Each structure stands twice: as C-alpha cells, then as structure tokens.
C-alpha cells in the first residue's frame, strides 16, 4: 500500500480550483478541492436597501447571473408575503421569468458542452481535433441570450425582475423576434447538436434508441461509450431539487424513490482549508443539477440511463445536454402562450414591506440556488446565498465524502479524475461568492 499525493490546477471553470489527490495503490481514494478568493457578496449586501440585492447578487456570477436575480426577487417576494404584503404575479410575469431563466440555462449548458466537455474529452482520449467548438458555443449562446435580452434588457447582469413582476412591457413585435431567435436556436440544436428532429429527440425513452442521436451529442455519447466512461464517476445516487420549474417538481430522489423536501432542513457549514462553505440536507449530501432534475421529473430517458449506469458520468453528462432540448421546447411553448394583455407588475410602487425574512429558490443551470434575506427598516441585515456548486463540490462530512469527490474516487489517473470533476460543470466564482 503506497500513498501518493498530487496537486492539479484546474482552469477554465469560471475561475480556477486546485485539487489535491491522494492515490492509494494506484487509485484515488481522496481529493481536497480548494477554491480561491472569497469575495464577500453577502457582507457587501449588508445595510443596503432590500431591493439592491436585485442589482448586486447577479454580480456573483458572470455565467448564471440571471438565476441569482430570480432567486433574489423571489426571496424579497416571499418576505413581503410573510410580512402581509400581497404579491400575486401575473401569469405573464411568471412566464417571462421562466423564459429568460431557461435561456440562461441553455446558454450555460451549451458552453459547457462545447467549451469544456468536448474539447477536454478529445484531449483525454487522445484524439486530435482542429474543430472550433467554441464558435458553436458562441453562436448558440449569443442567439439565445439575445432572446433573453428582448425581455431583460441585457445579458449578463440584468435586473429586470422587480418585486411583483417584471419591468418590461413587451409587445407582439418583441415576442415575434424572440420566437424567431428560439426557432434559430432549435434549428442549430437539431442540425448541429443532435442531428435529428427535436420532437423525435424528446420522444426518445430508452437507451436502446440512443444510436438515433447524431451530431456532436451523438459523437460525445459514442466517445464516452467506447472509452469505458459509461460506468465511472458514480456518486451517492441521491438527488435533490428545491425549486419547481418547467423541468421538474421540487423533491428529492434517493435512487429512484421520490419524497418531499423542505428548504428549512438545509444546513450550511464552514469547511477547513477553503473559502467554500459546505451544505447538507438532514445530515446527508445530495447531488443537484440537471441529473437531479431529470431523476425527480422521472424523465424516461434519464430513468433508462440510470437503470443501466446509475449516477455515472454518462448519465450526468447526458442529463445536462438533454436539458437543452427540453428547455428549447419549453421556451417555444412559453412564448406561444404568453398573455401579453396581462399586467407586467402587479405590486403598486408605494407598496412595500420594511421588516421581513424571505427565501428565494431557483433552479439554476448547476442546480438549486437558494437566497435568504433578512430585512429591518428596509435595510438588509443578513443575506445568505447557497449555490449549487456548494452541494456538489463540498468536502463532505465525517460520515461521507462530498458528491464530486465520491465520483472521483477510484479513478486511476489525475486526468480521469479531473474529467469527472468537470462533468459537474464546476463554477469557481459561485462557490466563493
């Protein structure tokens, strides 16, 4: 038995992280994940106006800023309601928020696919590629965030979600343009990513049909399968989703067993040697993100993959790309049914709660994102942000290893482990907010 320690700097993950691997007899048996600089957004928010969070919190993260905006507005709205101020969003406002959020998720997943997974996988399996994957990432993310900006004004760093609704007042002219951009995105997804019709893709239920998928996604699945990567990267096989969304209900899934969740049981704690805080639910660690949403939603193809491969790298990677298809369809439906004649914001300007505590939850690209705000005299006295990466990348507890760490354990090389690490779509900046 020989213990060997190795350090690896991981870059291009929305910042950087350092992994310290411990090999035992040629296999990884522990990993320490260290993130960089603590920026202190929660402290910066203290003593600011409650609504300033709508401007400050998106600046936690350049790639999932919109999710932070929606979480922060939901936290204030929850607080208002609990303080007795009625907040009833119009279905128009709800749908526009879901739409812009979906656009951000698509942007994120597609960048992960083309900027991280495909190039890293080709490198890992030793296949030389001259292909400019980045131009594909840039094209789709530019197209879909333009649709987002029609409603939100800009991406990144919009603050268009206001207490009681949205600040925009869209017309048919706006909706038609957004629809056209969604159609363009669907066309790209069909022709470049999956090489098949979207509806036919979404109807795929079983792993026996996976060979129908072509395009870059088909190629990715082929590479994973032919390099013995379908079974590695397994973790605790526990999944949790805190916010309802067009993707899934809110629940947890242990294996395939579904049960209710309550955000009150989420516990955050400091960890040694890193500025990232760990988080657990009733003393157990759960995975969050696309795979969890697919499992909780019982999406047939995810269940089928899980039945064969459990929560392996294959299932995890598939679930994230798969969400792009589901979200594009959802985007199309949301715009088709948008009730333009409803009000955008239902809360009058002078209606305000001055003392409240509220929780806002949103399904961000990497999983459940939780904001908690405590306000006295209109000013924030405490603000807490729990990011998805804190769930997936914590060091773990005495009883069990963190989700990503467990997935890396057993890997035979640093290269294998870091590829597994990247399948979690690691976001350094969100972890060190």
């Amino acid at each position, binding site marked *: 038995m020989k213990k060997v320690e190795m350090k690896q*700097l991981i*870059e291009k993950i929305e*910042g*950087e992280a350092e992994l310290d691997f411990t090999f035992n007899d040629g296999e990884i048996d522990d990993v320490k994940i260290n993130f960089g600089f603590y920026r202190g957004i929660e402290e910066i928010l203290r003593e600011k106006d409650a609504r300033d969070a709508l401007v400050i919190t998106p600046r936690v993260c*350049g790639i999932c800023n919109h999710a932070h905006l929606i979480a922060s507005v939901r936290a204030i709205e929850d607080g208002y309601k609990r303080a007795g101020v009625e907040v009833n969003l119009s279905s128009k406002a709800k749908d526009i928020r879901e739409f812009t959020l979906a656009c951000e998720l698509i942007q994120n997943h597609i960048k992960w696919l083309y900027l991280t997974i495909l190039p890293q996988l080709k490198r890992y399996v030793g296949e030389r590629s001259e292909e400019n994957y980045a131009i594909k990432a*840039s094209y789709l993310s530019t197209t879909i965030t333009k649709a987002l900006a029609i409603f939100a004004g800009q991406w990144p760093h919009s603050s268009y979600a206001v207490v009681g609704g949205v600040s925009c*007042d869209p*017309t048919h002219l706006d909706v038609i343009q957004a629809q056209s951009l969604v159609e363009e995105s669907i066309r790209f997804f069909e022709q470049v990513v999956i090489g098949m019709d979207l509806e036919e893709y979404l109807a795929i239920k079983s792993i026996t049909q996976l060979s129908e998928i072509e395009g870059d996604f088909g190629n990715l699945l082929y590479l994973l399968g032919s390099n013995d990567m379908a079974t590695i990267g397994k973790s605790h096989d526990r999944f949790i989703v805190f916010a309802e969304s067009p993707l899934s209900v809110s629940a947890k899934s242990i294996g395939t067993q579904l049960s209710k969740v309550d955000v009150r049981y989420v516990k955050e704690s400091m960890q040694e040697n890193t500025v990232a805080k760990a988080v657990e639910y009733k003393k157990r660690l759960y995975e969050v993100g696309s795979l969890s949403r697919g499992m909780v939603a019982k999406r047939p193809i995810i269940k089928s993959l899980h039945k064969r491969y459990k929560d392996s790298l294959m299932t995890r990677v598939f679930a994230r790309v798969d969400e792009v298809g589901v979200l594009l369809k959802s985007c199309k439906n949301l715009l088709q049914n948008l009730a333009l004649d409803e009000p*955008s914001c239902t809360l009058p300007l002078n209606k305000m709660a001055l003392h409240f505590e509220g929780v806002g939850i949103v399904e961000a690209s990497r999983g459940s994102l939780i904001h908690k705000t405590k306000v006295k005299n209109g000013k924030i006295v405490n603000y807490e942000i729990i990011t998805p990466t804190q769930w997936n990348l914590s060091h773990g507890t005495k009883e069990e290893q963190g989700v990503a760490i467990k997935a890396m354990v057993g890997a035979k090389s640093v290269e294998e482990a870091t590829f597994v690490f990247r399948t979690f779509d690691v976001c350094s*900046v969100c972890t060190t907010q």
Partner: protein
Amino acid sequence: MSKPKLLWLQSITCNGNTHSFLNHPELFSILAHFELIHHPVLESDYSFQEVIEGSVPCDVLILEGSFVQEGFLKAGVEVSSVIEHYAKRAKDIITVGTCATFGGIFKQKEPDKISGFAFDIEEKTARYKEYASKLISLPGCPIHPRWLSFVLLMITNGKKVEIDELHRPVELYGYTVHMGCTRNEYFEWKVDVKNFGLKEGCLFYEQGCQAPYTRGSCNKILWNDTSSKTRVGTPCFGCTEPSFPKTSLFTTKTNMGIPAKMPLGVPRRAYLTLTGVTKSFKIKRFSERLLEYDK
C-alpha cells in the same frame, strides 16, 4: 507580420466581462487578428500554469476584476505579481469592467485594500504612472462586447484611441446612457412612470435611474444587439461610473421632490426652471398609453 499576442488575466471577478465578450457575434473574426495566449474560458496557446510562471509572451493585456496587492493567490502565486509582470511587458493594457477600472462591487468588501488596476474610484493608484501611457479603461458592469472589439480593432489597425482623463475612449463614453433612451419624451415633459412594467414614463424622478449623468453608450450600441436596461423599464444603475454601486439603487434621492443629482453638466437653476415650466403643462399624449389596442 506576426499577430499581436493577446493575454486575458483575471483578478477578483465574476467573469461577467468574459461572458459578455463571448456574446460578440463576430467574436472569432476579431480574435483572428490576435494570437490568443491565454483566455479564462476559450482554448488558448498556453496553460494557466505557464502564464503564472511568467514565461508567455504578451502584447495586449486585458485585465478583468478588481485588484488587491496582497492576499489573492492562484497556484501559490500572488495574482498582483503576475499581472504586474505582464503589464510591464505589454504594449497596451485594457482594463475591462468597472472592477478592473475603478474597483467596482468587490471593492466594497475591503475598501482600503481593493481597487481598480490604475484607479481607485477616481483617484490614481500608485501604479498609474508606470502604465498610464498604454492604458485604456473600459468601465461597465459588465462591458459591452462591442466596446472591447472597438478598442482591439483600433489597436490592430494601428489607430490611436482618443481617451478622456480617466482613460475611457471618448467615442464610447462621450455619451450619456440617457442619450437614445426611448423614454426621452417623458423625461423632457417630466412624466414619471406609474409603475414598473410600463413602457410609458421616465424612471429618473422616482425609480433611481442614473442615465442622465452616467457616461456610456448603452442606448446607442444596444445590449445583445437588441435592447438596454431603460428600454425594458429597468433604471440605469450607473454601472460604468467610478462610484458604482451606490446604495438605494431603485430610489431617486430627492430634496423636497427635487433630484439631488442633476443631469450631467446641467446647472441646477436651468434644470429647475425647465421643470417648473414643463410641469405646468399636462400633455394628453403623455398621460395615455403609447399603443392603443382594440380601437
């Protein structure tokens, strides 16, 4: 002739400028003018480890994120020392975003220690003098991708970028965000918004809009080539300004109803005289919905 070597380094940041730039529709045509030495997200010639070791070439240095002299390490090395190493060698330095330029949001964590690269809010840092001759500031939280491409292409075209006293290109920051706002008529006639979510009304009087005194091209060069904050009814938060972010961002500070801060360069008496005059008229068109349906 070899292409200029482009190095993009990050300090204390959210990556917002990186992702904003990735949204540039002509991203790869622009990058084709350069040799990409290192970039936070895109595939590039050298690894971050090699960058840290100080051995990579650099002609154009892009800096993102606010700056701290000590205490921010990457792979065991002070980020400030890596940045200064390349800043000395670069022919051009572009600070992208309000954090890198003035300190920005992250400065508020430790105001005495954290600043922009060459400016601390509006004050010049100790480092300013050494780099002033090759420094271009692009404040904004985040920057617009076309602001950066303008500067990069001016550099590769061998043209001089005219700058103001804070080193901002005048062609980008000579405007105010107010210029080109679709709500301008409501500003002229002092008609404020009745609520969020309406295309009618001005956000300057009550909702905290800082567009009349914020320098930037947001309503000239539209965001994501399609819109802007004020066009979707969100106030401008002054994110290109050295003082960003202020507090009470959704409220206009007023003294007995009079805005505490005047539009850029407008004397208070001129503004108040005009206000008294315009408020004396009730213009029917401005009290109605802009678009009438079912008529």
